[in-house]
């Protein structure tokens, strides 16, 4: 178990990220139950919250379950939190839309962390649209300090109006550190216990129709509330130019136009119509500055307020002060130097990563690789280039199966689905059921590295431990697949590329569903980092012919040393040899994947008999 922090530990002014501030906010709000599925940029909220005393925090298998757990906790009378990245809310959208009907007992806040610019995401959706579509209020803080306060305010609104509440951050709120002042811990008004309220909690059509009416009444009240909500505020300045803005965009506006009048919206849904109209009537030139969709703009235009927005402000990617200034004034920023052409430095699979072995083997098949999301998506990059599709978590199996149905028997041996262990637990299991149930012959490779690598090594149901470090049951993936009805389930060591290739070839040709589980822990897990039996590899320089076979792995530890015309001969190589490979001992992790790839037996264990 990890050590817990109690309140007296946390005092005064702290430098916290938005996510750390949200965790502190949840603690101060007296949140009792918090559930989440990791996803950048939301992950650190629960990672921090689990260290506070008196809070139960967990990783759920996916966001839908996380929201259901939080909703259940709210039904049970306590303040509850669910956090997720923007696309996670797609997964949790089903409970969200009906939770808006049931309302809550204990306060319920759902944090959605959007990722404009797609720093670590597959799309750039604007989740403010969910607040409108699901008819729930949404708060949008601009920095860490507001994040903490808004979360606490969120619980009060949730309870007062009997509604779940969305709190939206973006990457630059979630991951920017700023000053936060610790505050007092609240004691929530509701008490835990069972209270049966079927007309509120059982959404049969007859009940739901009544709640539907309540929902509209609640929105009316919230609209009124928004008019006087202190976090919707006007900062009067020069009235020639005025801005309506929220979240991080507010900070860019203040930076770019410190003298202008600003209406800062702390609540982006519902909007304070009278306040907006009043503000607009005093301003000569009104701009709405917001990242991504014209959400505020659209809604205030619908109020009949004339403004400018996405006609000048980009709808794609993040904003910054310079973009805001240039979009509006046309004035160029202070850039002095043009960027120079230098080698790119894309992210890469780590040295020793087990994914490299399996994807190298897969790349030999020449098959269509229906991929999924995780560290292993990096196998799509050169030199492995071993992934042909990646859409959303869990999609690999369904898309592979769909292609198979489209093409028919001819596709046998030509398509393979690849999915990580955490992703399989998240939403891959149902895809597997689909393949078996509908008589497919899909081959599914499950990459069991014992962790959720991409988001920073969170345990998952197949790991054997929980968020707070307790030992728990481990889902047996092999037995699970067999129970679903897959007859051919094989486990391989992906570091052994030859064996892996052989098994892959056999299974992909099989006219029945099959699963290959690659079992090898992520090298960044503490137990792997600490291991003492690591044996590093080296390349015997004199044996290297410069054929570059080893470079096809794309291992960061294997470095190509180019040779100038004269040099090769001097070093005893054939005159035409363009260079040689060497292994950087600082980076080598000793996985041994590279050794068998060298036909000239130049790659050997460092300090071993063959060196």
């Amino acid at each position, binding site marked *: 178990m990890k050590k817990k922090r109690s309140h007296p530990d946390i005092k005064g*002014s702290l*430098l916290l990220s938005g996510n750390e501030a949200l965790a502190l906010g949840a603690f101060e709000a007296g949140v009792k139950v918090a559930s989440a599925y990791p996803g*950048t*940029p939301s*992950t*650190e909220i629960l990672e921090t919250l689990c260290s506070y005393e008196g809070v139960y925090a967990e990783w759920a298998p996916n966001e839908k379950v996380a929201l259901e757990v939080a909703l259940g906790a709210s039904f049970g009378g306590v303040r509850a939190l669910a956090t997720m990245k923007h696309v996670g809310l797609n997964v949790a959208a089903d409970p969200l839309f009906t939770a808006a009907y049931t309302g809550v007992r204990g306060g319920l806040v759902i944090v959605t962390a959007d990722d404009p610019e797609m*720093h*670590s995401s597959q799309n750039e959706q604007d989740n403010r649209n969910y607040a409108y579509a699901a008819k729930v209020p949404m708060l949008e803080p601009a*920095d860490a300090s507001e994040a903490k306060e808004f979360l606490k305010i969120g619980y009060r609104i949730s309870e007062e109006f009997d509604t779940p509440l969305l709190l939206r951050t973006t*990457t*630059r709120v979630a*991951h*920017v*550190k*700023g*000053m936060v002042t610790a505050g007092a811990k609240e004691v929530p008004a509701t008490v835990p216990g069972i209270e049966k309220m079927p007309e509120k909690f059982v959404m049969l059509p007859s009940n739901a129709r009544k709640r539907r009416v309540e929902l509209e009444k609640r929105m009316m009240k919230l609209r009124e509330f928004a008019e006087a909500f202190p976090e919707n505020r006007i900062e009067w300045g020069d009235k020639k130019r005025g801005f309506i803005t929220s979240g*991080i965009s507010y*900070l*860019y506006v*203040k*930076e770019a136009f*410190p003298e202008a009048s600003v209406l800062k919206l702390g609540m982006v849904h519902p909007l304070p119509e009278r306040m907006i109209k009043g503000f607009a009537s005093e301003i000569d030139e009104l701009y709405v500055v917001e990242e991504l969709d014209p959400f505020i703009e659209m809604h205030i235009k619908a109020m009949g307020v004339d403004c400018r927005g996405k006609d000048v402000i980009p709808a794609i990617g993040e904003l*910054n*002060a*310079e973009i805001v200034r240039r979009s509006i004034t046309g004035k160029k*920023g*202070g*850039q*002095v*130097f*043009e*960027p*120079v052409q*230098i*080698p*790119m*430095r*894309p*992210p*890469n*699979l*780590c040295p020793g990563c087990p994914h490299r072995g399996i994807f190298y083997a897969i790349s030999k098949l020449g098959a269509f690789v229906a991929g999924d999301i995780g*560290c292993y998506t*990096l196998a799509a990059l*050169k*030199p492995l280039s071993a992934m042909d599709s990646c859409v959303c978590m869990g999609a690999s199996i369904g898309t592979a199966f769909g292609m198979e149905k489209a093409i028919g028997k001819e596709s046998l041996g030509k398509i393979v689905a690849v999915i990580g262990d955490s992703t399989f637990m998240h939403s891959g299991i149902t895809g597997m059921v689909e393949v078996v149930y509908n008589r497919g012959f899909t081959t599914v490779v499950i990459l069991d590295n014992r962790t959720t690598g*991409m*988001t*920073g090594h969170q345990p998952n149901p197949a790991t054997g431990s929980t968020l707070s470090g307790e030992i728990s049951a481990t889902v047996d993936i092999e037995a699970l697949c067999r129970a679903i009805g897959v007859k051919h389930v094989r486990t391989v060591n992906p570091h052994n590329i030859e064996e892996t290739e052989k098994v892959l070839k056999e299974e992909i040709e099989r006219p029945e569903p099959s699963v290959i589980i690659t079992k090898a822990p992520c090298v960044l897990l503490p137990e792997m980092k600490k291991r003492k039996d690591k044996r590093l590899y080296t390349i015997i320089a004199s044996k290297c012919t410069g054929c*570059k076979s080893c*470079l096809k792995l*794309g291992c*960061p530890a*294997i*470095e*190509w040393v*180019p040779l100038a015309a004269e040099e090769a001969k001097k070093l005893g190589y054939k005159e035409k040899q363009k*260079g040689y490979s060497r292994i950087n001992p600082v980076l080598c992790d000793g996985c041994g994947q590279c050794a068998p790839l060298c036909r000239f037996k130049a790659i050997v264990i460092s300090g071993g008999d063959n060196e």
Partner: protein
Amino acid sequence: MSKTGNILLCGVGGQGILLASEIASSVLIKAGFDVKKSEVHGMAQRGGSVVAHLRYGKKVYSPLIEFGSADIAVSFELLESLRYLPYYRKETKVVVNTQKILPAPVSTGVDTYPADVLEQLKSRGLEVFPIDAFNIAKSVGETRAVNMVLVGAMSVFLSVDEKIFLEVVDERVPEKVRQVNRQAFLKGREIIEAMRPAIKGGKVQP
């Protein structure tokens, strides 16, 4: 409005940039400034290029440094010092760790590592402060203290007392490695101090 100080830290995932920027932030807070620090987690950490923006002043709004406005740039890797060039202005003090970490296109032989990184910087009239942080860290007995050497190096350009830096280093690193980290910091500071006559603008004052 008083000026906001802009420090850009860049390098390769895993080099300890986040801790270094964390220490610099704490120091500036102790010195009485408002601080905002921006970094990106997730995808960026898998050996990719990493950048952190640190802004400080009386009141900081935007967490992002604008192009052409960095006061100090600290590059933890040689090549990376060129990647963020648009953020520099003529007066930017560019501290460069001369350590090379080969990016994938170079190690796989598809691209070549430019031979003239420092010259490219200098030819643009920038004030460049090269420092072999890896070997300095090694000489104090801890190769992982590269980031502390660089914190020491950049400390020369901030008008904050050395004592405050050392206090924060003490707070931030575990007891066991405190002494080597202090040494690494002081060594980095000393080496850049020695280049002082060459420093044009002196301290950066927001």
